[in-house]
Every structure is written in C-alpha cells, then in structure tokens.
C-alpha cells in the first residue's frame, strides 16, 4: 500500500497479557516513530528508529515496553504484562528524511481490561 499500515486496528488485552503491535512504514522511509496517544491528549513520543538503529527510546514509559525494527523496515512495539494505564492509541509514523513531514498510520487502539 501507499501509506503507513498498522495492525491490528483494535486490540483488547486482559491485564497481564503481552501484546505486539505491528507497523509497516512507507517503502524507502528511513525514519520510523512510535507515539502513544491518550484520550484528549496529543501524541506522546515513545521511540524512533533510523533504519534498524533505535536512536532514541527516551519516551518508553517502562521496561515493559520494547520496540524493534530488525531489518530497517517493519517495526513491532511489544508491551509485556499490560496494565490498564497502557490503554491508548498507538501511532506509528515514517518519514523519508529529516525536516520533512512524518506520515502516520491509522493507529492501534489498545484497551486493557
């Protein structure tokens, strides 16, 4: 497809369950970002990759959150032992270069019950 694709669109997890969220960026885009958006808030930065290198993970809220992009293309955000406060929309974005706009996917809405 032409845009950033995220799956699943919706995920309901029981508290304590592990989840994995997938992002397929736009082909050829070097940078990939993960954001978390709580209800009524703006997207909050989690982590970003340049190709396969994770250059900044300062926004990951705890060591239960882990992201990878092993081949510099598809990325997975993993959340272990989910908690209710993890409920949010997780947005992935990619961009071709610095000082250019990032293109966002539709997001994955995670609900932890």
């Amino acid at each position, binding site marked *: 497809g032409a845009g950033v694709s995220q799956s699943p669109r919706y995920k309901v997890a029981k508290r304590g369950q592990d989840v994995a969220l997938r992002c397929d960026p736009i082909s050829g885009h070097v940078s990939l970002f993960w954001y978390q958006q709580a209800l009524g*808030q*703006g*997207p909050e930065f989690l982590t970003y990759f340049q190709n396969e290198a994770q*250059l900044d993970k300062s926004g990951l809220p705890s060591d239960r959150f882990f992201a990878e992009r092993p081949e510099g293309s598809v990325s997975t955000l993993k959340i272990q032992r989910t908690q209710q406060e993890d409920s949010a929309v997780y947005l992935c974005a990619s*961009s071709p270069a610095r*000082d250019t706009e990032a293109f*966002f996917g539709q997001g994955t809405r995670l609900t932890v019950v």
Partner: protein
Amino acid sequence: DQQVKQNSPSLSVQEGRISILNCDYTNSMFDYFLWYKKYPAEGPTFLISISSIKDKNEDGRFTVFLNKSAKHLSLHIVPSQPGDSAVYFCAAMPYNTDKLIFGTGTRLQVFP
C-alpha cells in the same frame, strides 16, 4: 512539562470566515514546526510546515506564521469550510533530533 502548548481546546467558526489556531512553545532548540489535522479514528495527516528560518509559509487556504521571539506560531485557514472540522495539532522538532513534540490539540468546528 508541556513544551508545546495549544491553550484553546476548541474553536468554532462560521463557514467562509477565518480560523486562527494558536500554538506556543518553550524550547529554543525547536527549529521545524508542523501542523497536523486529525479526523476521528484516523491517524494525524500532515497539513503544513515551517522552518525557523522563515516567518511565513502559505499553501492554498492554509498559512502558518512563526514568531520566534515570542515562541509562537499560528495557523490561519481562510476561507474556512465545514470539511475543515477536525482536531488540529501543532508539533515541533528540535534541531538535534527527528522526533516531534506535539501539543494537546484544538478542536475546530466550522458551521454553515
């Protein structure tokens, strides 16, 4: 510590008139600014951007103004259309990183 602030959570404007959305920032390291538009159940969509070396950028009905001394930017939409009704996010990028810092958004409603 909110580095990018959108102090108006909502704005209501009549169709055909100008919409002005405001954004303030605190970090002097920001050198690139963007506006995104978001419809429900969709990801943010890029609208317009401006580099810190400029004070204005225009694209059709959309114009972004940057006042570096005041650490303030604004988005003007003229004329406003009902299809512009959405949440608008201001975002800023520090010069030494690619990550975007977002404001909390302003919900714009354009009524006929």
